[in-house]
């Protein structure tokens, strides 16, 4: 232990050497305080996206530069900020501390925990706003994301690095699809990020509970800016979530990120823009709403090996009004993404859940990423469904139809039934393949429609108990050949419900 004298000596030495640095800072004066937005005069040399600190130690984020000053969104409580208060630019942009310990945590967009855990500390910081990787760093989307939902994995496959929009009215199961996909990533070597924007705190809490119940929080980060948070926080939330995704991608991991939902994000941005007196365009959105979402979703990518090889798969969610997918924000986001999953209220109410409208839903790049075996099985499925849709109108005149049409209608009804799925019950690849294969090969054509569910349950039970080997075989081989088909046939026939 050092003696007091030694301490005094060091202090004296410290005092002798003046280490006063001459640093110049940018300073401005608050001239207007509005709903979460502050206008500051001065700050001549501040940059867009720079952080600003007020006297009350609250921080702000510059999102508007004018001749006289800057417009700042306040990240935190804006009520103590007064007109005439000084604000200084910090010379750095908004960034978040990144660590592996983020997994399992619930945080706000600024990285502060909102669960009962400790503060997130790290030496590594990632910027919230970042330019998306360029063409050279990217690679084609070739690996699948197993959503565990039969209808999606077979008809609208999603690849790692894709951006697939989930769109539909309220209460059609948009969040359910996203959460089920997260639940299914348990052994898929995937990091999941769930970003809640403008949602009820109770709903977020329920979602976190659900993820905990299925042990999905082990590989998930929840970022939440709830409806009671300021528009500023709601605005930055998806960019913060994306920064976290980029951190895990930089470690070479595959990341799945859910933005729930971007409609409310657009609303928050509209509010900020109107307060900043930017010219309002269609539906009062500012001119750059398109860029708002395109720069966010462009950050989803598949990097090539040279650049670390990670990927970010984005599942943005958009809420429509009365099924109108052609209004402003939905069309914008549809054009940005690589496909969409359209959910339908009518389908939902008629008991088809997930209520995926197969006709309107597409996946523009996922086809190349689909597992070979699923592709082989889904080919027939698509054909059967398309024919069924054409013929469905005639189903009312059943007595007057010829045998061939009747057969088609029967097959279509069975397949529609098979594509239904309970929520929070994701399927493995082999389970999906076997169920769909059996349906398209006509093994359940003779079964009454009401018994299809029962048949499916029995088949899955049988597979999980007695036919584990077959499941493993399908999962590992990933190609359908004559030998495997024979085994599958035997497994299905053994059920003998038909």
């Amino acid at each position, binding site marked *: 232990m050092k003696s007091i004298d030694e301490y005094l000596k060091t202090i004296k030495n410290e005092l002798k050497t003046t280490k*006063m640095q*001459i*640093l*110049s*800072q*940018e*300073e*401005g004066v608050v*001239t207007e305080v509005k709903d979460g937005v502050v206008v500051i*005069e*001065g*700050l*001549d*040399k501040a940059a867009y996206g720079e952080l600003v600190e007020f006297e009350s*130690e609250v921080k702000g984020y510059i999102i508007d530069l004018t001749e*006289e000053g800057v417009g700042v969104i306040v990240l935190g409580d804006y009520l103590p900020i007064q007109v005439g208060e000084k604000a*200084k630019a910090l010379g750095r942009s908004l960034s978040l501390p990144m660590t592996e310990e983020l997994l399992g945590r619930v945080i706000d967009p600024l990285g502060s925990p909102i669960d009962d855990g400790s*503060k997130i500390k790290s030496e590594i910081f990632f910027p919230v706003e970042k330019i998306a990787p360029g063409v050279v760093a990217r690679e084609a989307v070739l690996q699948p994301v197993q959503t565990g939902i039969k209808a999606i994995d077979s008809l609208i496959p999603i690849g790692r690095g894709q951006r697939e929009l989930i769109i539909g009215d309220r209460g059609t199961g948009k969040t359910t699809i996203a959460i089920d996909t997260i639940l299914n990533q348990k052994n898929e070597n995937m990091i999941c990020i769930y970003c809640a924007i403008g949602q009820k705190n109770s709903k977020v809490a329920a979602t976190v509970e659900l993820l905990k119940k299925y042990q999905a929080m082990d590989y998930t980060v929840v970022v939440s800016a709830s409806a009671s948070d300021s528009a500023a926080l709601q605005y930055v939330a998806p960019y913060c979530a994306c920064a976290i995704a980029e951190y895990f991608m930089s470690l070479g991991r595959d990341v799945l990120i859910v933005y729930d939902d971007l409609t409310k994000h657009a609303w928050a941005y509209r509010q900020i823009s109107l307060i900043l007196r930017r010219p309002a365009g269609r539906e009062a959105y500012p001119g750059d709403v398109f860029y708002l979402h395109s720069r966010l979703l462009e950050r989803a990518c598949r990097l090539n090996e040279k650049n670390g090889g990670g990927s970010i798969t984005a599942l943005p969610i958009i809420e429509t009004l009365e099924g109108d997918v052609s209004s402003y924000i939905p069309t914008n986001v549809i054009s940005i993404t690589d496909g969409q999953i359209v959910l339908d209220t009518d389908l939902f109410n008629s008991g088809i859940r997930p209520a995926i409208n197969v006709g309107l839903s597409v996946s523009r790049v996922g086809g190349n990423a689909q597992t070979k075996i699923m592709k082989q099985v889904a080919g027939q499925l698509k054909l059967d469904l398309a024919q069924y849709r054409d013929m469905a109108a005639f189903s009312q005149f059943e007595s007057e139809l010829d045998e061939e049409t009747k057969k088609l209608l029967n097959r279509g009804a069975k397949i529609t039934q098979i594509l239904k799925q309970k929520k929070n019950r994701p399927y493995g690849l082999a389970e999906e393949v076997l169920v769909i294969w059996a349906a398209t090969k006509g093994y359940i054509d003779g079964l009454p429609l009401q018994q299809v569910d029962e048949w499916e349950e029995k088949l899955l039970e049988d597979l999980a108990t007695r036919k584990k080997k077959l499941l493993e075989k399908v999962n590992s081989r990933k190609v359908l050949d004559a030998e495997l088909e024979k085994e599958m046939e035997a497994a299905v026939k053994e059920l003998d419900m038909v």
Partner: protein
Amino acid sequence: MSLINAFEMKIDLRIKEDLKKFLTEERTRSKSTVQIRSAHPLDQLDINLLYKAIPRLKGIAYRVIIDPSLIAGLIVQQGSQIIDLSLSGQLKNLRASIYEIDR
């Protein structure tokens, strides 16, 4: 700012032009002069020391404001640019860094 607000009201166009001219002049003038806030009155020796520390201030007109709340030292301001060499500023930084570690 009160002048800027005046533009948003209905004002005679001629007066508006004059006001605008005055405002821009005022702005450029405040940008070209240096404002020095000091805890104690400054003599020529202090100013020379300041010039030695920050040579680019030489030859620019300055205005000294006495502000005892700085405790010691001074704050140099040119336009929106600020160089804080005051004790109160350092104390504020110290408090901020202590608070940071505490969390």
